[in-house]
């Protein structure tokens, strides 16, 4: 995304309510810094994330999309994140097959106690996406003004 003529990677982070969103909260409470252009969208469980959500995020200007959920085995709904894991494995592999840079998508398991991991993940992911430049391959010109 361009902000005042300068490229700032816009990151959309889907975080599950029970672990990762709480992890983000903890990062905040502990004053651990992560880039302000990480936009968090809270979802009840990582498996709530429909492939359409991810494509829509790219369409509306995201440069990278990350999905965060409870560690496998710890999902609040027992098995949600196991489905997430399969879906995202296949979806991201397909995006890469279509030539969309694989560094733009990621899944990370972050528990409510891992505020530091949340901040570190976001810093690292933002940097990786920054290095790629703007998302051109999944952009929608109709959404750009």
């Amino acid at each position, binding site marked *: 995304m361009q902000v005042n003529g300068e490229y700032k990677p816009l990151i959309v982070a889907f975080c599950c309510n029970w672990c990762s969103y709480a992890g983000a909260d903890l990062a905040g409470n502990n004053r651990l810094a992560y880039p302000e252009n990480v936009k968090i969208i809270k979802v009840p469980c990582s498996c709530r994330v429909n492939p*359409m959500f991810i494509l829509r995020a790219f369409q509306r200007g995201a440069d990278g999309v990350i999905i965060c959920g409870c560690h496998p*085995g710890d999902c609040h709904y027992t098995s949600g994140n196991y489905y997430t894991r*399969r879906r995202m494995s296949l*979806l991201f*592999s397909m995006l890469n097959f279509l030539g969309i840079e*694989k560094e733009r998508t990621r*899944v990370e398991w972050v528990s409510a106690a891992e505020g530091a991991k949340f901040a570190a993940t976001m810093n690292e992911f933002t940097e990786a996406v920054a290095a790629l430049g703007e998302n051109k391959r999944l952009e929608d010109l109709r959404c750009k003004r």
Partner: protein
Amino acid sequence: MQKITADMLIEKAVSLLEAGTISRVLGWKKGEFDYDVTPYVFADAESLKKDFVFDDFCGANFSKYLVAETRKAEGKVLVFLKPCDTYSFNQLLTEHRFDREAVYAVGIPCEGMADINKIKEITGDGISSLTSKGDKIVVDTIYDGEKEVDFASVLAERCVSCKSKKHVAYDELMGDEGDITDSARFDEVAQLEAMTEDERFAFWQSQLSKCIRCNACRDICPACTCEKCVFENPESPVENKAISDSFEEKMFHIIRAFHVAGRCTDCGECSRVCPQNIPLHLLNRKFIKDINSFYGEYQAGAEVGSRAPLVDYTTEDIEPGEAVMKGEGENA
């Protein structure tokens, strides 16, 4: 050329109609040209004798038609199924899309179907008739007379890489049962995987930009039987072709292929009906190849009731990051 003839199938259908086993027949009807055979429901012996055809242009897979047809009237529908069609048939049963009791399925052997576009590439346009003779097809054209093409050279892509000559579902079988074949169907996918991201992007951009969003690939797909579709939502930005932009194409194709992932039997209907000749099977096969490599071999429709890989899991599954690397190929 097919080993089984239209006459044999008509005879079978008429005897079943007369015995009262079935009330109607889902079959191939003569079209305006020899190559545009149309799916049709025949209700009596007369119409069968008049219009029923079976030849090298009967690619249409009837499984999906059963969803609507079985609800229309009492009595059983007779359906003729080629080996690949029986996989779709089973997949639809697995998903409870029609009542098995409302169908009488007759398995028929298949020698592969011809692709009219491949024929036109050789003979040019203006085809007035097509006649199969042994391993040749005699093509009569209005511009420069009769020509002969080798059946093997005009075989449809999906038949070149046929995965099975064995029927996995039927009430009755005509002819001999075949085997599951060793096909090279993932070769093209592997070639793409071996390319760089930029090359792949350029390839798909050139393919998908041809799409006119006729939705034929969606409509024909036996794995795609929702009665309401996301692509029909006028509030979505992907209801129609967007001329200004390529996002709509990618969204449509990613979602179309993803939502049948694990359920797609690789019947090849989507590629067959695409008026723009987009190799849609490569998207489906990428998913199938990945599923096989990540979660173990799985063939949708091989048996009724099997659990599709995307509604299943193990606690040891591969992580998405590794999966993407693996998906890029042992080649990378």
